[in-house]
């Protein structure tokens, strides 16, 4: 029996929010999949604290492919637009 965990699906939405799925797969000794469980996460370009100070999201743990996509999508304009949403909705991290 073997257990593997990996990001098997990811997507950036139009505001630059990274959506990704981490799937844990269990296989038996014959490599047949016996179970799969999913964990979903979202990550915006950055966060604000309750003083509305912006911090870029840390994506260093992601694959190069995902990092490249995020770095291309997370322009200053996108970050500013996202910061405005966070402030307006009072979404403090």
């Amino acid at each position: 029996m073997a257990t593997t965990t990996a990001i098997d699906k990811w997507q950036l939405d139009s505001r630059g929010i990274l959506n990704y799925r981490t799937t844990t797969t269990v296989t038996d000794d014959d490599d047949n999949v016996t179970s799969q469980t999913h964990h979903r996460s979202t990550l915006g370009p950055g966060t604000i604290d309750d003083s509305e100070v912006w911090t870029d999201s840390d994506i260093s743990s992601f694959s190069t492919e995902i990092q490249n996509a995020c770095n291309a999508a997370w322009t200053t304009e996108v970050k500013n637009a996202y910061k405005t949403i966070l402030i307006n909705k009072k979404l403090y991290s």
Partner: protein
Amino acid sequence: MGTITRTLANNLHHFGSNTVETGTWTPTTNIGFASVAEAKYIKIGKFVQADVSATYNAGPGDASQASSFGGLPFSGDNDCESISFNVLVEGHNEPVYSEVSGTGGSMKSRTDNVPLVRSQIGNRTLKATFTYTTDID
């Protein structure tokens, strides 16, 4: 007049597709959660329902309105202004609702629409069901 055939796929079409996915997610908040008893989701096409039962850390107990949560399993779609009334902060004697946006949502009083403050959520348990739509596959 033709015959209408009702199938599961036909009914799910109203949600945008017939894709169904279930799993877990990790709620986050400004003061952190001391424990998460449950955080699950089901997604049917564009429709998402995310449940959570989690206990906040004590936090600083001040009047900062940093009571929102994050980490939703899917980002709400662009025009998502979903309001969830199935929100309870145990021990807080006031009706609460949440407005989902992006990766999270605010926690507001239904009495005055003002976000809860950290002294109102510290050490308390959040039990909620958030329903909203997403453009994510």
